[in-house]
């Protein structure tokens, strides 16, 4: 079985290598080989899932020593538990559909082989990250995921915005990575191992400490540092700024980043370290509040965006906030459940948006869309399914997972978190149906573009339909009526904090409220944008608020004025120091060494007499030293 797990990431790696080395071959070859080679990965992932399901609590682990030092050793290998098995299924499944869709979307691109090799590497890194048996290996692949996202976001590097977005995504996530690395080192030093399965056990025994930092503080500090890493990767406040810009990459890449590979890594990390996080009340509270505030904040921004991908991008930030919220209040299984359903409907929304963008010759502006329902029925109905799932309407996937989170917050009695989540849910339903109405309903606002619009062929519609089915039905995997299948699957090995018994009375109430809120959001969207009304003039009373949301609460501007300017100022200062002090010194040192080298060079006369003399002098000097040495021998 563990061999099987090892094979899962190797297939995409193989495909990536093939694509990289056979660049001359046509694009269809690269697309085919990528999809075909990913099929066994999907199958193996499902087999692993079923295996773990059949053996609750099993942990497949296979490691070999990589570096053995007297004090501690580092291992490499793989490890599969319930969470891992689920992640493998999500990642491989979404990836294969994205691989298919990509060919339709980028058919004419010249660098398709490079695109597919990056894409495969991306999937490989993510799978390897998920399978990592310890934090050090995880960190390695964590960085590789970051690198691949950089490469793919900047795929159209000739476009300045794409290059800038790629750089931004890399730099912003690096801030989080620094935190994560510090956390890993802290835990590594405290525990003497990077094997994170041991941490929570050590923490429970009170032995996870350093001479200068006692147990509770260390756990809190380390988990907060790790959480910073997750915040960066999963685009939570205040490091969310990179994700909306990352849509400068090709749309299928956005689908991959938003659904399966990149941002899921952050949530996965927190879920993986959940037992350790659960040891620190402070961290859990921070996680929950960061998640809830992010959920609301991003959904407020999404309301007014005019770029179709930007709306969906902010919706990802917001949904990731829900997952963090769930993990923070101890509803471990619900958070992962939402990750699961979100992967399907978010991939669907992005691919459907990609289908629209493709049909309209590359425009992403909602103002130029409209009336596409009849022209692109498959895209419309699948997008609608995704939108309903995102809004949390019964019986679509998002309904079950989002309600589970809100229900858990309610059951915990944390009304602030619950309300934040609920308002965000309202906004969610509103903004996504605003997109639905503006894109598909009414009359076209740009006749030229509309005239050429068409579906993208079966390579694009098949993934849409499959994802549409999943977005509709995937939620049934975890309902109160099948005793929360997924939660049981996930918690066989994990022990989340017990949810109060009173919870059993709550689901229906909570579900009713969530459903009502979602419907209200849709209703408001229908009232404002339905029937082809298009954009409305903003009433003057709302203008400041509208501008606030439209400009994303000026976070980018604030960063630009503080962090970026400050950074530049600091850089200028450092540059001065570097240029005149450090470089002067290095030059001095360099000159010194070169000088000595030159002097030594003159000893190399080429005369054998000199050589002999030097050897003799060397011998004599040694003998003289021996004679006069302190405690000399003569």
């Amino acid at each position, binding site marked *: 079985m563990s061999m099987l797990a090892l094979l899962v990431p190797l297939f995409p790696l193989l495909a990536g290598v093939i694509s990289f080395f056979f660049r001359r071959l046509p694009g269809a070859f690269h697309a085919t080989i990528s999809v075909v080679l990913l099929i066994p990965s999907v199958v193996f992932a499902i087999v692993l899932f079923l295996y773990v399901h059949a053996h609750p609590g099993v942990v497949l682990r296979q490691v070999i020593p990589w570096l053995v030092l007297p004090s501690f050793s580092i291992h490499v290998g793989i490890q599969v538990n319930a969470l891992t098995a689920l992640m493998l299924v999500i990642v491989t499944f979404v990836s294969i559909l994205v691989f298919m869709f990509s060919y339709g979307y980028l058919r004419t691109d010249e660098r398709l082989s490079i695109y597919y090799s990056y894409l495969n590497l991306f999937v490989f890194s993510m799978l390897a990250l998920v399978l990592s048996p310890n934090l050090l290996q995880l960190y390695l692949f964590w960085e590789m995921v970051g690198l691949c996202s950089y490469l793919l976001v900047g795929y159209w590097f000739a476009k300045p915005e794409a290059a800038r977005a790629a750089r931004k995504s890399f730099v912003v996530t690096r801030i989080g990575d620094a935190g994560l690395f510090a956390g890993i080192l802290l835990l590594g030093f405290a525990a003497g191992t990077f094997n994170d399965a041991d941490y929570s056990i050590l923490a429970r025994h009170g032995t996870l400490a350093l001479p200068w930092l006692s147990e509770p503080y260390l756990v809190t500090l380390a988990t907060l540092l790790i959480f910073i890493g997750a915040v960066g990767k999963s685009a939570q406040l205040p490091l969310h700024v990179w994700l909306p810009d990352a849509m400068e990459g090709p749309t299928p890449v956005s689908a991959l980043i938003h659904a399966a590979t990149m941002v899921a890594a952050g949530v996965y990390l927190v879920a993986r370290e959940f037992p350790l996080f659960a040891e620190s009340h402070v961290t859990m509270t921070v996680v929950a509040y960061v998640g809830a505030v992010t959920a609301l904040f991003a959904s407020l921004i999404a309301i007014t965006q005019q770029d179709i991908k930007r709306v969906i991008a902010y919706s990802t930030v917001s949904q990731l906030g829900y997952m963090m919220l769930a993990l923070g209040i101890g509803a471990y299984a619900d958070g992962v459940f939402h990750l699961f359903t979100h992967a399907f409907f978010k991939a669907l929304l992005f691919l459907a948006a990609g289908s629209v963008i493709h049909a309209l010759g590359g425009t992403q502006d909602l103002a130029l869309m409209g009336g596409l329902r009849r022209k692109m029925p498959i895209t419309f109905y699948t997008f609608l399914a995704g939108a309903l799932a995102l809004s949390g309407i019964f019986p679509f996937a998002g309904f079950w997972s989002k309600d589970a989170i809100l229900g858990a917050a309610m059951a915990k009695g944390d009304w602030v978190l619950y309300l934040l989540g609920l308002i965000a849910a309202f906004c969610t339903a509103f903004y996504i149906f605003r997109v639905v109405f503006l894109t598909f309903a009414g009359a076209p606002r740009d006749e030229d573009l509309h005239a050429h619009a068409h579906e993208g062929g079966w390579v694009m519609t098949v993934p849409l339909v499959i994802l549409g089915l999943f977005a509709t039905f995937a939620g049934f995997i975890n309902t109160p009526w099948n005793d929360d299948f997924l939660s049981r699957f996930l918690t066989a090995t994990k022990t989340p904090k017990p949810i109060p018994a009173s919870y059993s009375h709550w689901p229906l109430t909570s579900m009713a409220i969530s459903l009502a809120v979602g419907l209200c959001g849709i209703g408001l969207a229908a009232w404002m944008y339905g029937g082809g009304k298009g954009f409305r003039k903003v009433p003057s009373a709302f203008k400041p608020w509208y501008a606030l949301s439209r400009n994303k609460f000026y976070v980018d501007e604030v960063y630009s004025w503080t962090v970026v300017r400050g950074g530049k100022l600091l850089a200028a200062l450092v540059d001065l120091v570097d240029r005149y002090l450090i470089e002067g010194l290095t030059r001095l040192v360099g000159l010194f060494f070169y000088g000595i*080298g*030159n002097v030594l060079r003159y000893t190399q006369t080429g005369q054998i007499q000199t050589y002999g003399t030097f050897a003799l002098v*060397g011998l004599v000097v040694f*003998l003289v030293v021996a004679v006069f040495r302190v405690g000399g021998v003569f």
Partner: protein
Amino acid sequence: MSLATLLQAHLWTTMGPLFVVGMTAIVVMVLELFLPAASRKFIVLLAALGVVVAGVVLVHTMSVPPELSLDTMVSDGLATVSSMLLLATGLLVLLLHLDVNESEEMPRESSFLLLFALVGALAMVTAVNLVALYIGLELLSVSSYVLVALRKRHRQASVEGSMKYLVMGGIGSAVFLYGVSFIYGLTGQTSLYALAQASLSLWQHDAAIAVIAFLLIVVGLGIKLSLVPFHMWTPDAYEGAPSSVAALISTLSKTATFALALRVLVYIFNGGAHDLFPYIAVLAAITMLAGNWLALTQHNLRRLLAFSSVAQAGYLLIPIALFGTASVREWPDLYDNLLFYLAVYTFLTIGAFAVLHLLEHHRDVTMADGLTGFAKKSPWLAASFIVFLLGLAGMPLTGGFVGKFYIFTSTVQTGVLWLGIVLFATSVLSFFYYFGLIRTMFQSPLPTYGDAAQGQAEGRTPVPVATGIVIALCLFGTVALGVVPGILLHPLALVQWF
């Protein structure tokens, strides 16, 4: 006792590989007299085959417990592991020689001389008797002197290098022998085991003469190992020698001489190690500093590699120097360190010389600026060269890093941290010139006109099969030892060194 039983009983275990290589050498020598010049390739391949057979024999004898035959030859851990490394080195050098032989139009003697050098080297690591050791040393040295002179196409430089090597090597042998004669005079013994037992009393009764003997032996070996200030012949010899011979004298003779030095110095002088081995530490430090400094200003690729190998000898000397402070419990670690780094160094150096040979022969490049545009024209070859240079510099993910890292840890453990710091600092210094070369490879060639365009007009450098195999093997060794050093470190940790 008949010869046959003698062979079976003892000698086969301790000297089997040596016999096989020696016999091959004689067969090759005789065959060369009769075969036409066109069968050159066949002769070299035959020689390589002999080395492979010797390797098989060696592996076969590994299962037998260590033996001492004739009170002279031994099959202990140091002998077996070093022999293994020497045979691997010999094989790589012969494969490289296949192409060098062709392109340098070397006289036919070259193949059997290479084998005799290998015989000498094997004797140096298996013998535990000062006389036998000295014979091995001389066999290796004399073969090398001749081999350096065989580069027909650059006759003048070749003979000059050989001459300097001969004179300095002669001085080295003489000084070494002088030191050894003191030891013999004091103890009447030539067996290292007997001397090891007498070591403490030697130190207590005749400290003064022991110091002189120690220093003479160190200086004598220092000349062979090209330690500063006894290194001056090195660049000339490297410059004059055919590439395969340059690879030979920088790897084979270094491995053998380091193993010999380790054995002789530790066995004879462990009684006074605490007072004596600091001299070696000083020598190591001087060698690291001066070697790297000299390489820094060098533009000639061969001389640069020569000085770099001087610096590497300094790194390799550290484990021996640490015997001064290490407890007996830590001795195996030092053996591990030395042999691991020797293995890495062998791969790096032979690989670098293989690439350099192709550069010289097919592109006429001898100076560093000739490397411009190399990365673009022959990306694979350039990539291999970069890996070797990075390995020599000690970049992580190459064996060079792991080797230096372990030596550094040993300096910390044995409390000679200052030597570790010199190692670290000079490694940083070495980055300047290794990276200088790498940078040059990526620069586009300067616009040239007329004859000045030498070496840059052609496209991709052709890679002969044998040389390609050598480069691939060295590349594999370098990276494998860097990524999974355990494959060598774990076996080494199990070796019974003495």
